[in-house]
């Protein structure tokens, strides 16, 4: 009699993901029975679900770490903290969505469940060392995003964005899967933990397969991370997608992709002689191209898209510093940078979402003109985000950049630190342009009041206060997260 071994399921460990997924389903039901033209119930359910999931993560903080579900999932501080990051970022994105979707005339209730499922995919990516599960996570994250990007069906740009994202995303998934297959061929396992053994004991052909497979995996993840030269989709997709979806993409999908990259590199630590120089070159390219191209952009969403590319480069420097000497540098820098990046990017996109008015949305730099007069709250928060994005103290953006500088200099990645410094100077140009439009310029045409609503104002204020709070309360925050 064939006996199928059912692995013991540690429901507590996967409860955050389960809660998010189930909340999504619940939200669908609420959406079906909702009174017409009002999504408030759906939003409420989703936000509550996110809070519950965050609470579940907190409960897991005290549990023993280790592999679960036959090696499919892992519970460790890194994964839990990244789950928390994803939940927080998703919360912020949902918070300002309803007002925007109404102004944009696309108040579809399906939006919220899709976002939740996408976030669940990201959480899966952060909590596994199994390559196939990483792939599953990416697909869950991405497929929901393909739909979300094209949600504004009447707009050609949104359609284009979805299609472009889908085609290139599918292509990248192909790379990833192909790479996974090679690694599987070399190691006989889908688990990242077996990579090191296969490398040390393997013959030349095995090693070649490993390197090739790893390279393909990194290309696939590089696409998700929008590293140069795999970034071509980013500006178009970011610009075309509805602004709240863009904020979600810029924050959550980047956090998840960095987490997955971290897991892969952790498994492939033995090969670091090979990938460290390659990824250093990628980091330099990503920072430089992102910033240089951002200079000539005229559209706020495109500027922020390129800015997110360059920030991915900065994070990569932090990641590389860790893997250069893992004993010395912990994960705190990368976690903290992603936290600050999420706060300022989501906040900035929230302010940009003000541009939507009665189904129209123009996001040229001039659309911000006179913001200080129309909506002081939004203008002041935008100023805070811009200051933080430049990396001027005393903001979280500065502390994050400072930590990356410190790690890079400490581990001898001095060239990367210098490139980062030069890029920070370059980035001043376009960030100041945003601040100038919002604060200095007079409004071009009179009349339209701001489409400010309490939820949007709340998002701006939360993110702006968060940018300072994360800097001033650095010590308690990092102690609570308990990363090394």
């Amino acid at each position, binding site marked *: 009699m064939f006996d199928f071994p059912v692995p013991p399921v540690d429901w507590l460990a996967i409860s955050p993901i389960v809660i998010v997924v189930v909340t999504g389903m619940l939200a669908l039901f609420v959406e079906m029975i909702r009174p017409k033209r009002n999504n408030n119930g759906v939003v409420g359910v989703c936000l509550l679900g996110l809070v519950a999931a965050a609470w579940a993560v907190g409960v897991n903080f005290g549990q023993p770490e280790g592999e679960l579900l036959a090696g499919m999932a892992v519970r460790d501080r890194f994964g839990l903290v990244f789950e928390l990051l994803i939940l927080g970022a998703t919360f912020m994105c949902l918070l300002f969505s309803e007002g925007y979707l109404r102004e944009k005339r696309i108040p579809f209730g399906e939006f919220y469940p899709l976002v939740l499922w996408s976030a669940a995919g990201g959480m899966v990516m952060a909590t596994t060392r199994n390559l196939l599960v990483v792939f599953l996570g990416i697909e869950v994250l991405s497929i929901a995003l393909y739909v979300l990007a094209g949600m504004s069906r009447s707009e050609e740009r949104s359609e284009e964005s979805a299609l472009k994202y889908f085609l290139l995303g599918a292509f990248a998934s192909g790379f990833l899967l192909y790479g996974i297959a090679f690694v599987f061929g070399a190691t006989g396992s889908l688990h990242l933990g077996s990579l090191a053994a296969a490398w040390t004991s393997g013959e030349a052909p095995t090693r070649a397969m490993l390197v090739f497979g790893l390279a393909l995996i990194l290309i696939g993840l590089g696409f998700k991370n929008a590293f140069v030269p795999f970034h071509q989709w980013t500006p178009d997709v970011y610009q075309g997608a509805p602004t709240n979806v863009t904020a979600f993409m810029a924050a959550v999908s980047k956090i998840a992709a960095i987490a997955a990259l971290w897991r892969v590199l952790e498994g492939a630590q033995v090969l670091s002689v090979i990938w460290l120089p390659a990824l250093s070159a990628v980091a330099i390219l990503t920072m430089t191209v992102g910033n240089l191209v951002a200079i000539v952009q005229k559209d706020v969403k495109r500027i922020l898209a390129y800015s997110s590319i360059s920030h991915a480069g900065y994070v990569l420097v932090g990641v590389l510093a860790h893997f250069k000497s893992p004993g010395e540098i912990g994960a705190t820098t990368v976690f903290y940078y992603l936290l600050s990046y999420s706060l300022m990017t989501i906040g900035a996109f929230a302010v940009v979402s003000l541009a939507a008015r009665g189904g129209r949305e123009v996001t040229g730099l001039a659309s911000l003109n006179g913001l200080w007069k129309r909506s002081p709250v939004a203008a002041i928060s935008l100023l805070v985000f811009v200051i933080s994005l430049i990396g*001027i103290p*005393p903001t979280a953006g500065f502390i994050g950049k400072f930590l990356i500088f410190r790690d890079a200099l400490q581990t001898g990645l001095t060239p990367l*630190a*210098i490139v980062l410094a030069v890029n920070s*100077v370059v980035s001043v140009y376009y960030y100041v342009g945003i601040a*100038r439009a919002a604060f*200095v310029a007079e409004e071009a045409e009179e009349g339209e009041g701001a489409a400010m609503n309490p939820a949007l104002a709340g998002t701006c204020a939360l993110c702006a206060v968060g940018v300072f709070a994360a800097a001033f309360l*650095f010590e308690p925050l990092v102690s609570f997260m308990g990363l090394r």
Partner: protein
Amino acid sequence: MNQPTGFGLLSGVVFLPIVGALLVALIPKAQVAAIRYAALIASVATFGLSVVLLHGFSSSTFHFQWVEFVPWIARAGIHYRVGVDGFSIWLVLLTTFLSFISVWFSFYIKDRVKEYMLFMLALETAMLGVFVSLDMIVFYTFFEFSLIPMYFLIAIWGGNRRAYASLKFFLFTFAGSIFMLLGMIVLFVLNWRLTGTPSFSILDIQSAVASGKLWAGSPHLEPWVFWAFAVAFLVKCPAFPFHTWLPDAHVEAPTAGSVILAGVLLKMGTYGFLRFCLPLFPDTLPSQVPILMLLAVIGIIYGAVVAAVQPDLKKLVAYSSVAHMGFVMLGIFSLNHAGILGGSFQQLSHGVSTGALFLLVGLIYERRHTREFKDFGGLKAQMPIFAAIFLIIMLSSAGLPGTNGFVGEFLALLGAAETCFNRLYGLDPAFVVIAGGGVILAAVYLLYMFQQVFYGPNTNPDNKRLKDLKPWEVVMAGSLVVLVFWGGLFPNTFIGPMEASATATRLMATLPAGQRPVWSDPSQEVSAAGNQSQLVSLGDGRLGAGAIIATTDVHVVWQEEHPPEEVVNHLGAR
């Protein structure tokens, strides 16, 4: 030193303006008068508090006073640590005083008054923070943060080319200082490897430098880190060839912005030299001094020559700043007693005189909305009080004996002469001779300016309607005139408290490892016994009476001809 003290009076001075700004933010936009007076009260109160600081300041020690320590980011060694010494106490007072004058002058601002005052007060906090920070990251925080309000002051209330000027100002300063951040982190990492405790405190770093251990392991890094700091300060100063942002920023900035920019922001650069470049890089300093002295001399001559051909009052004053700041650098990098005292006195007197000049230019600009020489002439009869005040300030800027300008320039030149004629650091007497020519050039362009504006026929009908200064304007400008004479006739008021710090800083920069004074060692004191300044160790850890003999006597300073090497031998023989 590492016991948390909580926030005290010094923090009160630093943060009072920003608290005032928060209160101003609560006043409705339409109540312009209330906003103006609230801002004025905040700045006056800050000035008052800073006078209290001075009152409790002891001039007999080079150690930091009013020290406060509040833990912040322990794992990265960043803590809120502030204190003042002989250099910074005066810069704090200069800042609070000029901020008060600037806020007062800003009653002329009609547009977006609330935001304007918010930025002014935020800027004051940032500037004060720079001068009192004893933690490098906290210093960097204030240093960088000062860019934001200044950027907006220029970008919103500036002249026609304000967009260009403000961006240039931001980019130049940011580009300079980001590498300083890298330099700070290198110092931190070296100190961490040496001592095992993470710390960004300049007291800890300087102690490691003074013992010679910090740079012992990696001497090749020292010049690089030195220049990472020096370039940030050269940009801020601004010294040739990094000065190009200054004329643009000055000309486009609103008057109060120019006053603050010239009066205080530029001092962040020279203060940075005194606080970081001298004490922390003693081994590489001798080889870098000639380059910095050369830049100073070029700045003096270049600034003066370019100032002489400007058709515009404000541009002329802006370029004269480049020249004057050259004297400050010249003095500081002479690395002797007279020079360092002269440099640090000159930075104060430049703050007063040039700040006052911008103020006066602003007063005439508010009346005529032009600054071109060709629009003026013969104003002496039209505005006699204005002309008199302008004359005094102008002569102070030109360095006339009896005014503050003379004391600083003279001491700086004296120090430079001492170093150059001894041919220390490979310097040549030509340096100081050429720099001395700058004083003459200053008289040339300043007198030319005065002549263009105040003498000659008053032909322009617009000028015939001009009214003289209002009483409040006379009080405002007159208070600066008082300072001009005070600095010129009683310089010891200002030099006295600086003396111990100047001596200690010089010894930190010139003595060999192991014999340098250490900020974090309270048992040390400097003494100027006889002609020879030296380090004195007070066994019981307290100041003995008469442990320091402060000397402001130029005669004594002049006799101190021993080059640093001889000082070394002298001390080594004991």
